[in-house]
């Protein structure tokens, strides 16, 4: 796996995560508002990061923080879909919790001078 392949697979994961609820909403002629389009962007970012991290399974599968990050990203996608189906924007605040967790891990690892963000 080189860098271009990893980024292509991550982009495909993000597009699939964003388009699945959009196709559902359009197919069943549910109302599509600004909140729904925002949710598509949030779902793309979540799916991109999830696929990016999931491709590093062979390196980090024994780390607790890595498994927790994957589980939090799945929960984040579920919250995003909830926000898209019910058109509630505050669901995206719950969805951002996983990103904040990963950013905190990266900051802590940078402060401690470690090589990767999954510290435990």
């Amino acid at each position, binding site marked *: 796996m080189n860098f271009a*392949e990893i980024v*292509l*697979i991550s*982009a*495909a*994961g993000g*597009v*699939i995560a964003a*388009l*699945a609820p*959009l*196709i559902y909403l*359009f*197919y069943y*002629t549910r109302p599509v508002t600004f909140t729904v389009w925002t949710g598509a962007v949030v779902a793309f970012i979540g799916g991109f990061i999830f696929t990016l991290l999931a491709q590093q399974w062979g390196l980090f599968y024994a780390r607790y923080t890595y498994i927790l990050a994957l589980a939090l990203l799945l929960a984040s996608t579920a919250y995003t879909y909830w926000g898209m189906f019910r058109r509630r924007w505050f669901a995206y605040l719950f969805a951002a919790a996983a990103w904040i967790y990963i950013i905190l891990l990266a900051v802590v690892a940078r402060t401690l001078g470690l090589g990767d963000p999954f510290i435990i």
Partner: protein
Amino acid sequence: MNWVALLVGVAAGMAVAFGRVYAERLVARYFGLVPPLLFKHRDVIVPFLVLATAANVYAVWITVAYGGLSAWRLSAVLGMALVAAAQMIQLHIALRPTSRDLQLALISCTPYVYLFALYVAALAAGSYSLWLF
């Protein structure tokens, strides 16, 4: 098994299917109706577009990766032309929804039948290459 071609194909197929449901919504709004009244076979067409576009992208990878196209084998060039034609028909199905959707979808399945026939013929002939002629 090429995961890049598979995932990129599924993502592209979902984009085409999204174009289909978006076009259905626009046409139905123009006539003041709901999409299920206008388009009887949308439950078949929407998943078909996802699968068929994924199959097209994967077929392009098969044709290019195993040297068929770079050697200018007639069977490989024919397969690539059929895949390109099928993709154009499927884009037409997606963006111009009509009452002939199912017929066009059936016609656009020719490259898959052709590639499967090549595969069966290569197995029967004991050939190591898919590109028989």
